[in-house]
């Protein structure tokens, strides 16, 4: 440990202004901060500081994503082997999926962090930790067959136009991970919709057995194919085609538990997204005119990216509502809109992504009205004092 520390201290001058590698200062400092928590001490204000920092916060989110990631690996393998008509062993399926998923994760991190490093150097800031989470979220909401160049392009788009132009982590309007997905959804719709992209190898169609359908429950419903819908239990466990990390509600709920126990994720947003989804589902059940609307309301919570979006996407503190009262409204409307878009707009089978991005836009407006209520309360109090003449 001391050896490493000495090495860093020796190298440091070359990476500071005037040194040989001054252009890599941010990168160097980023790695240094990764290895060692800085020796900086307080000088003004509070003399002691909480042990938590953003690295810790982000690490907790990454840990919470691990169950979904592991299950995503397994399910990727499972779906592949099913499509070629074999029944894999647990580890075989997992390993297959892991090997397929790894390039996606690597591309996501290399491209995203690369841009972050450059942006940090230009601004002369330290490197932000925000992308550590985004970089893992993006592969988890992609179809496994997405081409790597497309993924790289989507990541570059979301990081540069979604985040860096606004000033980096903490300043962005949209959830960067969802922006990457939306980019592919609108630019290359063939790779984000349909029945073939969700299972590894299906787009090439080699060795696929007859009768295997890679359709997700949502696309089945969008095309009116209700009879082949997997059971609720299958959707809850997650052994169905879908984006890598979104299929297993159980894995997501374990992640949710980690976020809630540590207090890193907002329980208000999670709860209200589910409440909104249930509310809208019940409403549609009540006024149902077709089979999709008749679908039991709780199916919506287990299908597609609803649970994943509620737990990992809607709870992004930067792009979501920032006031506590606002969070209730924000989450509830995400739930309502998700189900509404799914059921009433067959062109967009997955409503969660669009619902969250739309509510990202409205979050500042919600906050505005919540804060205005506080301001009005204060003004009213001042007027009451003036009128009664108490001084």
């Amino acid at each position, binding site marked *: 440990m001391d050896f*490493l520390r000495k090495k860093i201290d020796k190298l440091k001058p070359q990476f500071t202004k005037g040194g040989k590698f001054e252009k890599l200062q941010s990168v160097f400092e980023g790695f240094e901060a990764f*290895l060692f*928590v800085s020796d900086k*001490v307080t000088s003004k204000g509070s003399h002691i500081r909480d042990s*938590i920092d953003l690295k810790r916060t982000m690490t907790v989110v990454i840990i919470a994503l691990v169950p979904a990631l592991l299950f995503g690996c397994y399910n990727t393998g499972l779906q592949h082997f099913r499509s070629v008509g074999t029944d894999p062993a647990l580890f075989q399926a997992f390993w297959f999926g892991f090997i397929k998923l790894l390039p996606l994760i690597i591309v996501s991190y290399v491209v995203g962090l690369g841009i972050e490093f450059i942006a940090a150097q230009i601004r002369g800031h330290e490197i932000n930790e925000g992308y550590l989470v985004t970089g893992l979220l993006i592969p988890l909401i992609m179809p496994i067959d997405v081409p790597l160049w497309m993924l790289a392009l989507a990541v570059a788009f979301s990081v540069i136009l979604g985040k860096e132009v606004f000033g980096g982590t*903490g300043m962005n309007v949209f959830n960067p991970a969802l922006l990457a997905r939306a980019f592919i959804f609108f630019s290359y719709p063939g790779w984000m919709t349909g029945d073939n992209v969700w299972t590894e190898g299906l787009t090439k169609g080699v060795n696929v057995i007859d009768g295997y359908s890679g359709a997700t429950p949502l696309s089945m419903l969008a095309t009116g194919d209700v009879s082949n819908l997997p059971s609720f239990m299958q959707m809850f466990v997650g052994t169905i085609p879908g984006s890598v990390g979104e299929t297993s509600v159980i894995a997501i709920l374990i992640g949710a538990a980690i976020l809630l126990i*540590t207090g890193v994720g907002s329980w208000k947003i999670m709860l209200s997204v589910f409440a909104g989804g249930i509310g809208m589902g019940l409403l549609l059940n009540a006024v149902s005119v077709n089979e999709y609307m008749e679908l039991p309301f709780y199916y919506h919570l287990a299908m597609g990216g609803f649970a994943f979006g509620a737990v990992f996407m809607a709870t992004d503190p930067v792009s979501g509502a*920032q006031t506590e009262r606002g969070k209730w409204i924000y989450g509830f409307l995400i739930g309502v809109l998700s189900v509404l878009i799914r059921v009433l707009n067959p062109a967009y089978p997955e409503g969660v992504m669009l619902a969250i991005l739309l509510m990202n836009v409205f979050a500042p407006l919600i906050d505005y009205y919540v804060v205005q209520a506080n301001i009005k309360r204060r003004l009213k109090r001042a007027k009451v*004092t003036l009128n009664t003449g108490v001084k």
Partner: protein
Amino acid sequence: MPGSIKLKKGFDIRLEGIAERKIAGTVSPALFGVKPIDFPGLTPKLDVHIGDSVEAGSSLFHDKLQPEIKFTSPVSGKVVSIDRGDRRKILEVVVEKSGNSAVDFGKADPDKLSETQIKEVLLRSGLWPAVRQRPYHVIANPNDHPKSVFISCFDTAPLAPDYNFILENSSGEHFRKGLKAVSKLTKGKVNLVLKHGDAGNKVFEGIGGVEISYFSGPHPAGNVGVQIHHLDPVNKGESVWYVNIQDVITIGRLFAEGIYRPERLIALTGSEVVVPQYYKMVSGGSIAPMLEGNVKDGGLRYISGNVLTGTKIERNGYLGFYDSQVTVIPEGNYFEMFGWALPGIGKLSYSRTFLSSLFSKKKYKPDTNFHGGERAFVVTGLYEKVFPMDIYPMQLLKAIIAQDIDMMENLGIYEVAEEDFALCEFVCPSKIEIQSIVRQGLDLIRKEMS
């Protein structure tokens, strides 16, 4: 209990090194310092030169903008140095103690004095700065008429001195006299705020003419700003004044004995103090004598005040004007490998992201390390959990950073002080210097309004 207010938001930071309820003795340092930097927004103008002889109560410097506000020597002796910082800013005026002479301000019964007479004595004796005001959390403007006066009778800050213990060991007569004098400063109510369940102190028996309220809850329930917010909030154009309880006693002594003698009980606290206990000392004294042989080895941070809002001083530095506490904690200038990734069994945190959160009764000995680098605002909803006011802390901070005067006003800047934001600063994972931002905002709006 009547008028009891229960606060839920906040956080009690449990630290090692609370002062035992025992007075170790009286310390008489040789050097005393009066520090203009203890008074935010003050432009000092010197009244003495190096080598001048002064008595207790002689003016050392005064406020350039309001010359009637004087800052006087706490002891008699000789001015030995005037330390300056950047741009010749006066940091401290140091007096070497000799003799016991004091300026005679005349004994008087505050009951028989008018408001103007009381103000005049307080201003002349150098005790006026003990009276502070919201808005801006600065020395009260003597030409104002506050709608009420507040005295917080307990402190919830980490390792804070126990005011009940201090009252038991101070003159009840002085306290009552001081209270009478302070009462004359307003036509409105004088609010004594006690900790819920703390009615037992004899000093408060039979006190008339004051309104007693009770507060309970975690820190910052003892902050006078929080109490004002809940009992008599400050609107635009109004002001509320407040005085520390030990200063009330000093004011009482001024009227009882006719001299300025700011002697008080100081809690020496912190994990690096061998025997944390109380000392009797005149305000402004060097802390070196009480630390003699009573602190542990290693790089140490000496704080006049508590760990959240206190001022960093040297080992031979001087106790701040408003402080009743000295805290000594370890410095944190070391690198910690993978510090952010460790399970963190012994780590102090408000969050539940470290294993230490499983042990709720454990006491900590944190150091001065930042535990991270400064970032933009990311996490939301966290400040609100430790900020027991009907104010949006993050929105207000952003308005201050943007220098949006209207928005600062709308969001309640008149009600807050940097100390109310101390816990926000402590818990902030983005390591933002929140107290400095609040002070900048207060200074800005004060300038704008004058």
